């Protein structure tokens, strides 16, 4: 029993409530929002240290015995994800100060961001599949607020699409949970992992597993359920886009990761092969999008979809390098996507447009920005020693060891397309004839650039110091591959 694992959920919740009381006090809103995220990061780091030292942490709410109460479980994977997502939220809050606009800041922007953090951290921590639904709803509610926040015309148009897709997938989620309950009689994930292998009729369970893949696939934006993502993510302002791009789809990816390693392992030859094929199709679909657009935001948005495919392909292999690689790549992708959105946000502000064809020559006026972007772009494509490389290497290795070796070849080939799509922004925006830029105060530029450059530096450290982080990653992978560790931690408290 340890309440520590609840702190990354309770702290932002508490601060969000406090911030709701005085929406107009700009300075206090900013300070408290940053403090909330900062304290959350610290508590998440404590949690990670504890999980690393004492093994998987679990607490069942309300002092109920484990399969009956709602269990919250923090294994290395969830602790790592909580740390990363809290860190990104902190940077998004700093990046919001100069970019989001006073009007938005005074209409519950920071409470919404913190509530999103509650939902994301909760979804990563919960050990109960229905509670996962609840936390996903919490983060969706917050995301509905953020996507319409400001009420511009494109935002309103896209939010209807976003709402519809998510309400339909939530309804499916509840239906799938009900099916699972009627077959197994439990919703506790650890208990599910015990009960599912005892059920002999795997046919119905395979159907349920595919239903869950569809549900989480909507959230994670896999092929062909990603159709809502490019439009919906395009409409809100950059800080919100960075938050969504870095965190929201990753909750879906995490849910697939958890369910497909912990308990939906009764018919691997069907479910995981399906997952692998879908993952490859997702990568290909994302590549087409990433090359097709001349819009900086759209290019990075399609790169989210590519990354989702890469991560899921590693999970589908269900072997040690594949799973380790997926975890590494997941963490890398959250950080690098936030950094890239920050960078293209600055570029878009400087040119006053997101159209690549109207940009050029920024390297002469803002050289540091240019080189930072190049580092981030190389990191995204996975050029050694940057952070995309170790994860992708392990995933490719996992693919070659597994049955879907052709998938690894696709991933290697598409890495070049990812590189091309990211470098295209560099070529168009930073090279070429200088185009007149919007005058920007030095202090405002620095306020935007400093959080960005720190985030890029973190990704570089994460890549160069891969050896340093590998024990955490392989620890997380070990729990995923040996469900008994997870089960014992929850059921044998």
């Amino acid at each position, binding site marked *: 029993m340890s309440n520590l694992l*609840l702190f990354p959920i309770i702290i932002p919740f508490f601060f969000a409530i*406090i911030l709701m009381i005085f929406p107009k006090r700009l300075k206090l809103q900013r300070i408290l929002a940053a403090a909330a995220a900062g304290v959350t990061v610290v508590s998440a780091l404590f949690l990670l240290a504890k999980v690393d030292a004492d093994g998987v942490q679990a607490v069942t709410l309300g002092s109920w015995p484990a399969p009956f109460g709602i269990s919250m479980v923090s294994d290395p994977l969830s602790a790592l994800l909580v740390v990363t997502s809290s860190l990104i939220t902190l940077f998004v809050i700093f990046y919001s100060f100069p970019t989001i606009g006073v009007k938005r800041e005074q209409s519950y922007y920071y409470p919404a961001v913190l509530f999103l953090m509650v939902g994301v951290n909760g979804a990563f921590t919960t050990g109960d599949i229905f509670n996962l639904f609840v936390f996903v709803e919490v983060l969706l509610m917050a995301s509905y607020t953020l996507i319409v926040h400001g009420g511009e015309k494109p935002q309103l148009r896209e939010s209807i699409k976003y709402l519809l897709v998510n309400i339909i997938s939530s309804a499916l989620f509840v239906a799938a949970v009900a099916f699972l309950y009627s077959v197994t009689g439990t919703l506790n994930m650890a208990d599910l992992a015990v009960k599912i292998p005892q059920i002999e009729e795997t046919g119905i369970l395979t159907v349920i597993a595919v239903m869950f893949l569809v549900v989480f696939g909507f959230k994670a934006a896999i092929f062909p359920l990603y159709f809502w993502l490019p439009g919906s993510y395009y409409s809100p302002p950059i800080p919100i886009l960075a938050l969504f791009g870095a965190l929201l789809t990753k909750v879906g990816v995490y849910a697939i990761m958890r369910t497909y390693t912990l308990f939906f392992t009764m018919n691997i030859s069907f479910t995981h092969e399906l997952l692998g094929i879908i993952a490859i199709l997702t990568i290909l679909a994302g590549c087409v999008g990433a090359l097709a657009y001349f819009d900086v935001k759209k290019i990075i948005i399609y790169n989210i979809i590519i990354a989702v495919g890469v991560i899921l392909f590693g999970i589908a292999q269900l072997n040690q390098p594949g799973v380790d690689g997926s975890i590494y790549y997941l963490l890398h992708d959250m950080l690098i996507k936030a950094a890239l959105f920050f960078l293209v946000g600055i570029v878009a502000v400087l040119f006053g447009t997101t159209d690549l064809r109207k940009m050029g020559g920024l390297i002469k006026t803002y050289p540091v920005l240019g080189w930072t972007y190049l580092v981030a772009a190389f990191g995204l494509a996975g050029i050694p020693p940057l952070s995309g490389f170790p994860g992708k290497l392990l995933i490719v290795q996992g693919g070659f060891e597994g049955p879907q070796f052709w998938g690894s070849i696709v991933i290697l080939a598409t890495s070049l397309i990812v590189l091309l799509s990211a470098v295209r922004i560099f070529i168009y925006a930073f090279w070429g004839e200088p185009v007149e830029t919007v005058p920007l105060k030095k202090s405002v530029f620095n306020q935007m650039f400093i959080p960005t450059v720190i985030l890029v530096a973190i990704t570089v450290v994460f890549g160069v110091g891969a050896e340093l982080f590998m024990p955490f990653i392989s620890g997380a992978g070990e729990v995923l591959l040996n469900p008994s560790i997870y089960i014992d931690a929850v059921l044998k408290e």
Partner: protein
Amino acid sequence: MRTNDVMLQTATKVVTFIILMFAVHIFFAGHYTPGGGFVGGLLTTSAIVLLMLAFDLETVKKILPINYVSMTAVGLLLALATAAASIIFDVPFFTHAYDYYDLPLFGNTSLHSALLFDVGVYLVVVGVTMTIIQTIGEDG
């Protein structure tokens, strides 16, 4: 254009209080039987909405000068604090405490910390539904 709604207004003056009493009854009934903060909150809201229909938004705002967003926040805070109190006693989150007391008039009564949580839920439900209804009502 205002129509003559003397009947509605007169009835509302009585009915509102009946609904509010019933809301309190349902709220406490929720302790062991169906009911509780959520339903009680909805009933309270329905009483206030009835007032709004019979009179108008401005009058009701004058009668109940409440910032419903702050009310939601206070409710959330109360609920969170009740649940988080278990952290101080080093038991799992959400563990509630209860005991039996001999109270005058009520006799042997069980008092739960869960009641405070339910008060929080009640405030959140009233706050949120009133915010929604007021926002939609003002736009029209």
